[in-house]
């Protein structure tokens, strides 16, 4: 018989090893973020001359300048509006479709699902021009609605695919119970399937939020007026054709990253809480 001390040391060693591994990965992840934040307090001529990570003088005014010069206020609101609308749209539309693909029967189901899959795969190189012409014909060009619909479409296939994979995995018993209780299909989708799939819905939200938040090329092409542009467009003004204003760019990037970090912080709770609590509530 081995002594309890043996088991204890073994467990501690294992834990130490795991932590060492986790910490080394964590450091590599943290470094660029820290660098970006420190760089955002430097000036254009110290950012490259001064090799030290931490600046000697902190130029907090960079944030103010970035906010004002980039006209962040308006763009910020636009970006939040687009992100929220697109994410709500995608979550509702794709979870409905994914639920149908996973649980319901109807003719043409497999064909349609394969079509969504294929759509995920083919990059359309000229899609910007095509979308431009299409939106123009629909009188949706240079309107937020047109942009939002395009962005919903961009995230749709991947989200359906993600959600369907998880719906397939979920136990059917709860749904059966709900059906016996007299729930309709929409009721089951809303009261059972969605709460059960909180972890993956959180992934879908983060995935699409990041996607919309970082998009600027489509916005640039279909919007003519500044008033509609998202935040990323403001960042482009700091990296000119010839001159890049690095400190302001880094300050801008730091500002832009914050909301995504918040979304992630908020959403990862749901990834962790998982099925068990969800099942009880639902």
């Amino acid at each position, binding site marked *: 018989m081995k002594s309890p001390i043996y088991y204890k040391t073994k467990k501690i060693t294992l834990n130490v090893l795991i932590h060492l591994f986790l910490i080394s990965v964590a450091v590599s992840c943290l470094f660029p973020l820290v660098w970006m934040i420190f760089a955002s307090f430097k000036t254009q001529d110290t950012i490259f001359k001064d090799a030290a990570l931490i600046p000697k003088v902190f130029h907090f005014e960079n944030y103010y300048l970035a906010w004002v010069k980039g006209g962040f206020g308006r763009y910020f609101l636009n970006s939040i509006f687009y992100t929220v609308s697109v994410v709500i749209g995608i979550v509702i539309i794709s979870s409905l479709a994914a639920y149908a693909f996973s649980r319901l029967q109807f003719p043409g189901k497999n064909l349609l699902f394969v*079509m969504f899959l294929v759509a995920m795969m*083919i*990059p359309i190189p000229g899609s910007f021009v095509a979308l431009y012409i299409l939106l123009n014909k629909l009188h949706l060009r240079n309107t937020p609605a047109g942009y939002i619909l395009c962005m*919903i479409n961009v995230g749709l296939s991947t989200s359906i695919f993600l959600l369907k994979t998880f719906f397939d995995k979920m136990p059917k018993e709860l749904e059966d119970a709900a059906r016996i209780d007299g729930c309709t299909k929409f009721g089951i989708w809303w009261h059972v399937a969605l709460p059960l799939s909180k972890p993956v819905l959180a992934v879908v939200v983060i995935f699409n939020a990041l996607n919309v938040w*970082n998009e600027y090329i489509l916005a640039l092409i279909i919007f003519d007026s500044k008033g509609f542009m998202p935040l990323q467009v403001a960042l482009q003004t700091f990296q000119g054709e010839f001159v890049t204003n690095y400190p302001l760019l880094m300050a801008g990037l730091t500002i832009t990253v914050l909301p995504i970090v918040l979304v992630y912080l908020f959403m990862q709770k749901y990834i962790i809480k998982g099925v068990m609590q969800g099942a009880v509530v639902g």
Partner: protein
Amino acid sequence: MRLKSTLENYLFILPAVVIFFIFYVIPFLWVFQLGFYNWDGILPTKTFVGLGNFKDIIFNDPSWWRSIRNAGFITFIALTLQNALAFLLAWACDRQIRLKNFYRLIFFIPPILSELVVGMVWGFIIRDNPQGAGLINRGLVALGLPNLVRGWLSDKSTVLTTVALIHSWKGFGWGFLIFLAGLQTIPRELYEAAKVDGANAWQSFTKITIPLMVPVVVLAAILTVLGTMQAFVLIIGLVGGEFAGHASVPVLRILASMRYSSRFGYACSQGIIFGVILIVVSFMQYRFSKKARQG
């Protein structure tokens, strides 16, 4: 009654299908049709060339096939290293471990960082003085391996691998998130039941975790393949261009045809061929997973 039920089922997919048809299928058909034309993207007139573009790509465009090979290599590294790392980290964070909330937050930093910052910082870490700190090479010297020192981002034999590794670093957060979500949906009772039955940690990992995670792994794998398409932004950030073809990827080639040589039709055909290749690869993964699930 049956009919009503089917109609109700269609209602579930209706919004998705409508958006999909208007905003995906119509542009797609337009692009598909352009693949058979010569068009510079500006003139109102296009010349029909039939399968000419496709023939040219298949037989006369070695740089295109080279970019496909490069993308294949990046995908391979991402599929193996990136997903293995993501799975390990997700598994570690799924356990009762200290600081796990901290790790969960940190591991998702790379995906949310802009490619520009990633390119600048990793370029700085890797490149030797005066362009950077040369940390990798200094580390190698410190470890007594001076003959491994090289210009990781300026040597033709290492540039693609370096790019692929940084791409994997940037992307593992997604795999981590998806695996974590997958692991969290495995009911804890299963593990407890196994414990009661006398299974050790390794047994419950191979008998419970792995089989239940197969569909999630496939999902992560397919998303990884799609993620490789985005590698081009990072490549531009790290090496500025295609590095004499050593770092070219299909999206860069498509953009080059569309933008720099104004061959819009040709770019469309390239897109279609690339799509077909992606579909075949993903389909193979799907089949493979079905077998794995059954077997």
